[in-house]
Structure formats: C-alpha cells, structure tokens
C-alpha cells in the first residue's frame, strides 16, 4: 500500500516536472529574439496594450499567430525609428481601427463605455436614497397621531388603569 502510494507520488512529480518543462519550453519559444533588451522591453510594454486581431482574446505580446509576429516586427522597427508609444499605437489604429487598443481612447464615441458605469452607479445611489427617504417618511407618517386619536388613546389608557 505504502509503496504504491510512493509510486503514485513519484509519478505525479515526474508528470509535473515534464509539464513545467514543456510549458517553459513553449513559453520560451514564443519569446522574441532579444537582440536589444531595452527595445524588447518597450515592445512588450506596448504590445501588451494591443490586441491580436487573429486570436482576439490575446494581446499582441502573447499571441503566436503569424500576423502577431509580423506586427511585433513592425512595432520593433518603429521603436528603432525612435517613435513614441502614441505614434506606434496610432500607426496600428490607422490600419486596424480602435479595436486593436485594449484601453479604448476617451472620445465621444466611447463616452458611454467610459462613463456609463458611473452614470449607472449615480442612478443606483439616487434610487437607493429616494427609496430610503420614502420609507422613512411613510414610517413617521404612520406614527404621527392626530389630536383626536391622542385623546382617544389616552382615554383608553386611563380606562385601563381603573379595573
């Protein structure tokens, strides 16, 4: 029993090792050829903010699609030409549209996207307060007694005093 448990553990460990080995090998393969570490660092920073158009849930930095490779090469060239981050992003937006940006620009077209949630929050807060106020006033209105009622209650209470 004990030895089979050990065997299982060893097998697990081996599987884990193989797996991590495989994944790191894969991860390494996707890494660009680092010729200039500074340039590559900027490339990663920029391309993490850009979407790969082929596999749309991946960033340009992580995608291994053929087009992503080409676009990274293009970004590399632009960095080497001393273009600013904004210029490089504009270059891609001019070709592929706002869709390539993971962080959409703030402009009339995207106002709803950027400010809509805050608008909803404000509406919810307003709704909550008006609801609370309504409930409170309903409660206090229910407690308030007219003079006639007060007399009646006092009369009942008094009559209750005398058995």
């Amino acid at each position, binding site marked *: 029993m004990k030895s089979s448990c050990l065997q299982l553990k060893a097998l697990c460990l081996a599987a884990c090792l193989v797996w991590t080995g495989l994944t790191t090998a894969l991860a390494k393969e996707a890494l660009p050829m680092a010729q200039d570490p500074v340039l590559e660092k900027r490339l990663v920073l920029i391309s993490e903010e850009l979407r790969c158009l082929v596999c749309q849930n991946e960033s340009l930095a992580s995608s291994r699609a053929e087009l992503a490779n080409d676009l990274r090469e293009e970004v590399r060239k632009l960095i080497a030409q001393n273009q600013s981050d904004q210029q490089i992003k504009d270059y891609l937006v001019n070709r*592929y549209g706002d869709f390539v940006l993971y962080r959409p620009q703030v402009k009339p077209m995207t106002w709803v996207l950027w400010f809509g949630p805050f608008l909803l929050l404000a509406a919810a807060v307003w709704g909550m307060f008006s609801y609370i106020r309504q409930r409170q006033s309903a409660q206090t209105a229910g407690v308030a007694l007219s003079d006639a009622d007060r007399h009646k209650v006092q009369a009942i209470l008094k009559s209750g005093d005398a058995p």
Partner: protein
Amino acid sequence: MKKFFIPLGIFLVLVAFLAVGLKRNPQEIPSPLLGKPAPLFSLSTLDTGGAKFGPQDMRGKVWMLNVWATWCAACRDEHPLLVALSKANQLPIVGLNYKEVQAQDAPAGRQLTPEDKLRIARERSAVWLQRLGDPYVVSVFDLDGRVGIDYGVYGVPETYIIDKEGVIRFKQVGAVTLETLQSQILPLLQKLNAS
C-alpha cells in the same frame, strides 16, 4: 403592479442587448480605411519580366482588390464567384497574393531568400489559377505581408472596392458570397461608376 413591471422591463432590455450582441460577428471589425485613399505599393506580378504593379496604375477605374493565398481554404470557396464576376466584365479584379510562402515552407535548416519566395509563389499561383480559372487582370505578390499590414489585413480572404479617385469604398473580411455581391457590391459599383 409596478413592482412586477420594473424588473420585467429591465429583464427585457437586457435580453434585447444580449440578442443583438449574439447576432453580431466578432470577426467583423469596422475598417478605419473606408473613405481613405488606398495605401500605395509597388509589387512584383506574375509576369516574370519584372513588371511591377501599384494602385496608382488603376487611377480612373473602379476596381476590386482581392487578397488571397493558395493555402487559404475560404479563398477556394469564393474563387468561382470571382471568376464569374470577371467573366461578366463587371470590374477589373486585382489579386493580391498574401504571404504565399510561409516560414514552414522552407527546407529544414535553410531560410528562403526573397527571390526563392517569389519563384515559389509564382509557381503555386500559376497552378492554382490555371486549375480554378484566373479572374485577375493582374496578380501581385505581397511576400512578407507588409502591404497587407498597410491595408489592415487580418484574415484572408479580404476584398476591397476602390473608386476612381483611389479611395477605399468597401471592405469585406472573409469570402465574398453571392448575397454580399448582390446586396452590397453590385449596387455600390453602379453608384461609383455613375459618378
């Protein structure tokens, strides 16, 4: 009654949004190039004599730029339609062969030179066009995909309609179908040719 209708109303609005969202094709990205001048290029053609072609050669004509490759399955699907379109003499179609020769096509341990790539691309395209029909007035080769990047190509086949002034008027990502041809491309052609 009011208590019942408010959640129902919110639910229906949500359903409407989701229904519209489901029907949309996430692969269809509006191109920022519509209404902008077609990016210029000068690329080698099928002609081994070394003739080059660029959009500037089509000035004054309404024409179609069709991005394709022999490795692209959807291109094979749309090809008969393009052949029919060219036979009907509707408009000149220019074929832009996109990255015909891929990295894995190189023999192990050797890199292909641009000349090798051009030669292989020409051979393959010639076979394809001979077998399936040649709808193109001219075929050009974008071997490294640089022109494709300028045109915002991200999924072959892609098709562009360019007007007499060299402005992109239409872009289709994916195979051209009979339906898009009839409902969008042909009416647009009439409009552009009339102007």
